C-alpha cells in the first residue's frame, strides 16, 4: 500500500468536505448503477492509498453489508412493480426490476457511505471547525462537535470507574439479561448525574472566558490552503450544480424523474 502521494489528510478540510458532498450529489443525480459502480471503484482505489484505509473499509463494511443484505432480501424477493419475473417462490417473486433497484440503491448508498467516511476518517476535526467558523458558522457549533468527540472516550472511562466503585461495594454482574439490565440502570444514572453536574460548572467557566461574547472570534490555528484547492472546490461546486440542473431539466422535459 503506497501512502502519501494522495493523502487526503494534507488537504484543507473544506476541500475534502466539498469533494465528498460533490461525489454524493453527482452520483445521485446521475442515477445509474454503472456510474455509481465506477465512482465506488474510484473511491476504493483512493481509500487504499490512505494511511487509515483499513479503518475506513472496516467502518464501511459494518454499515454496508447489513444494508445490502436487507436491500437484496427486500427488493429481490418482493417488488410488486416488477414485470420481468425471473423466479416465483410462493408469495415472493424474484424480478429483474427488483434486482436492478437493489443494485442501483445499494451502489448509490455505497458511494455515499465511502465518500463521507473517507472524509471523516482523514479530516482533522478542529481544523474543519476553524475553517467553518471562519466562514460564518456559529463558533458554538465547533464547540459542541469537538466537545462531544472529546467526551465520548471520557464517558466510556467514566462508566468503567462507576462500575469499579459499585463492584467495590458488592455488585456482581452476571451474564443474564436481568443482571445486565440492572447494571445498565445502575451505571446510566450516575453517568448522567456526574456529566450534567460537571456541565454546570463548565458553563460558568466558559462564560467567564468570553464564550457567549458576540464579537467575531479569531483563531490561533491557521489551516493551510492553496490556490489549486480553492479552484478545485469551485469546480466541484459547479459540477454538482450542473448535475442537479440537468436532472431537473430532464424531469421537467424528458419524462424520467
Amino acid at each position, binding site marked *: 500500500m503506497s501512502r502519501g502521494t494522495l493523502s487526503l489528510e494534507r488537504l484543507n478540510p473544506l476541500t475534502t468536505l466539498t469533494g465528498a458532498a460533490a461525489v454524493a450529489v453527482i452520483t445521485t443525480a446521475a442515477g445509474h448503477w454503472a456510474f455509481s459502480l465506477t465512482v465506488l471503484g474510484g473511491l476504493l482505489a483512493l481509500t487504499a492509498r490512505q494511511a487509515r484505509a483499513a479503518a475506513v473499509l472496516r467502518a464501511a463494511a459494518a454499515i454496508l453489508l447489513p444494508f445490502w443484505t436487507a436491500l437484496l432480501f427486500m427488493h429481490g424477493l418482493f417488488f410488486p412493480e416488477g414485470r420481468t419475473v425471473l423466479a416465483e417462490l410462493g408469495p415472493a417473486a424474484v424480478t429483474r426490476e427488483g434486482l436492478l433497484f437493489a443494485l442501483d440503491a445499494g451502489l448509490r448508498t455505497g458511494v455515499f457511505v465511502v465518500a463521507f467516511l473517507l472524509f471523516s476518517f482523514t479530516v482533522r476535526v478542529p481544523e474543519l471547525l476553524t475553517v467553518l467558523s471562519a466562514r460564518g458558522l456559529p463558533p458554538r457549533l465547533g*464547540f459542541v462537535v*469537538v466537545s462531544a468527540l472529546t467526551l465520548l472516550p471520557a464517558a466510556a472511562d467514566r462508566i468503567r470507574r462507576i462500575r469499579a466503585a459499585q463492584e*467495590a461495594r458488592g455488585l456482581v454482574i452476571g451474564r443474564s439479561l436481568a443482571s445486565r439490565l440492572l447494571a445498565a440502570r445502575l451505571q446510566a444514572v450516575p453517568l448522567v448525574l456526574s456529566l450534567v453536574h460537571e456541565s454546570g460548572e463548565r458553563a*460558568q467557566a466558559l462564560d467567564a*472566558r468570553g464564550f457567549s461574547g458576540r*464579537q467575531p472570534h479569531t483563531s*490561533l490555528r491557521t489551516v493551510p490552503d492553496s490556490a489549486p484547492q480553492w479552484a478545485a472546490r469551485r469546480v466541484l461546486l459547479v459540477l454538482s450544480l450542473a448535475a442537479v440542473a440537468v436532472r431537473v431539466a430532464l424531469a421537467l422535459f424528458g419524462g424520467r424523474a
Partner: protein
Amino acid sequence: MSAGPLLAAHVASFRFHGADTPALRDISITADAGSLTAVLGGSGSGKSTLARILAAWLPGHYGGELRGRLELGAAGAGGRIEFTGGSDDPRIDPAAWAAHVAYVPQDAAAMLSTVRDTVAGELAFGLENLGVQVEEMRCRIADTAGLTGLQDLLERDPATLSGGELRRLAIGCAVIRRPSVLLLDEPFASLDAEGAGTVERLVRRLTAEGTAVVVFSSTADTLCRSASHWTVLGNTVLGSGEHDGGRQLAAGTPGTLLVAGVPADGDALARSGVVVPEDAPVTAPRRIHAGGATPLLELIDVRFGYDRAGDVAAPGTETLRGVDLALRPGEILAVTGANGSGKSTLLRQLNGLLRPGSGTVLLKGAPTDGTPAGVLAADVGLLFQDPRFQLFERTALREVAFGLGAKRRLLRRNGDDAGVRERALAALAAVGLDAHVNTHPLELPASSRRLLALATVIAREPAVLALDEPTVGLDRRGLEVLDTAMAEATAWGAAVVMVTHHLAYARARADRLLRLDGGVLTPLD
C-alpha cells in the same frame, strides 16, 4: 486606577433556589492591589459559594438570590453593582467581569474548554472568543506560559497533564486577560508536595506583580499564613436546625486570630473547623495488637503492569514488581510514595478490581483469584481517591444502603429493608451526616462527600479497610471522624491499610509505615 481596594463586596445574604436557609449571611471582603487575602472555613461554610459570587459566577445567573453589593475599584462608576434579590436585579456579564476578577474553581479541570488539544490552544481559547488578533495572542500566551511555568508544555494535550500542571494551566487561563483580582478556591486540593510547591510559587509571583489574590481554603497552610488578612467563616451546627454556616465568625490579620501560632480554645478559628497544620490533635500512642495473629490479607510476590494491549507487561516495566505484604487484625498500615508510584494500583489489588499479573493475594488464607470483586467487597472495603467516582446514588441514605444486605435484583431495592436502613443510618451518624440523610451526594460540600464515601465503606464492616488518600479535602471535623472510624474498625478486629502522601499524618496514625518505590514496598522509619 483608583486608590481604593480593587474589589470590595458585601453579601447581606445569598440563598440558592429551593433552599430554606441562606448559604451566606453578612460577609464583607476587600482586596487591595498586591495583597494576599485568605478566606478560611471548614466544609459547608460556603466559601466556594462566596468565591463564586465574587467571581460573578452566581448572581443574576444560575443559582439563587443575592442581596448585597459588589464594587470594582478599577471600573469607575459602573463598577458598583447593587443586588436586592429581586428578579430585576442587574445581570453581570461574566466575561466583562472576568477581565477584572478571575476565578479558578476547586476542580481545575472544569476550567478547561475540552475542545482544545494543546495547552497553547487552551490558553488561547479565552482570547479567541474576544477576537484578540493572532500576534497579540501569541505574545500573551508566551507571557502567561512564562509566568505559570508552562513553557515546555505548550504543545502537550491538556488531558495528559499532572495535577499541579493542570492547576497552573487553569490559573494561566484565568490570568491571561491580566485581571487585577484572582480568586483561588482550594488551590492545593489533591496536589502532592511538589505540585503544591509550584502553585504556591506562582501565587507569590502574581502578588509581587500587583495582582490581588484571594485564597479560599479549609487549611491554614503556609500560603494562608503569609496572607495580610483572614476572614473566617463558620460551619458549626448549633442545634434545632440553626447553624452559623456562611456567617463571618472573625476577620483580621493572622496574628490576631492565632495566639502563638495555634487557635485559642473556643475562638472562631477552632469553631470554624479550619485545619491548622501545627495543631493536629495528638492521640495516645497506639498499642500494637498485631502480634502473632494470622494475616487477614496477604500479598505474595504480586506483580502487575498496565499494558496497552491488556496483556501482562514486560518484566521491568510493571507498576508493581514483586510486592509482599501481610496485614494483621487490628493493624493500621500506611503506604507512602510519589504521585504515580502505583499506590492506588496496589489498593485495587486488595479487593480484586485489578488482578495480579503474577503472584498471589490471600484473603483470610484463601486465594482470591476467580472470586468476583463484588464478592470480595464483603471483606475488603475500598475508599476511592476521588469520591465523585464512588458516589452514584440519589440520596446519602440510598448511597450507604447500596449493596448492603441481600443481593441486588432488578426491581427490588435494599433500602426498603429495615435492617439495612438501620445500618445505613448508623454509618451516616458515625460520620456526622445524620442531618443529610436525604441530601443528594453531589450537593454535599467536598469534605462531607468524602465522609459519605467513608460511611459507605464502614457500613459494610469489612475485615480490611483500604483507604486511598483519606485525608485529602477533609476539614478538622472530618479528620476527627476519620480517626474515630479507624480506631473503631481496629477495635472490632479489622485491619486498615491507607495510602497517603501526607507523611506527617501517616506517622501519627499508623503502626507501620511502608514506602512504595520502584514497584516494591520497603519499610520506612
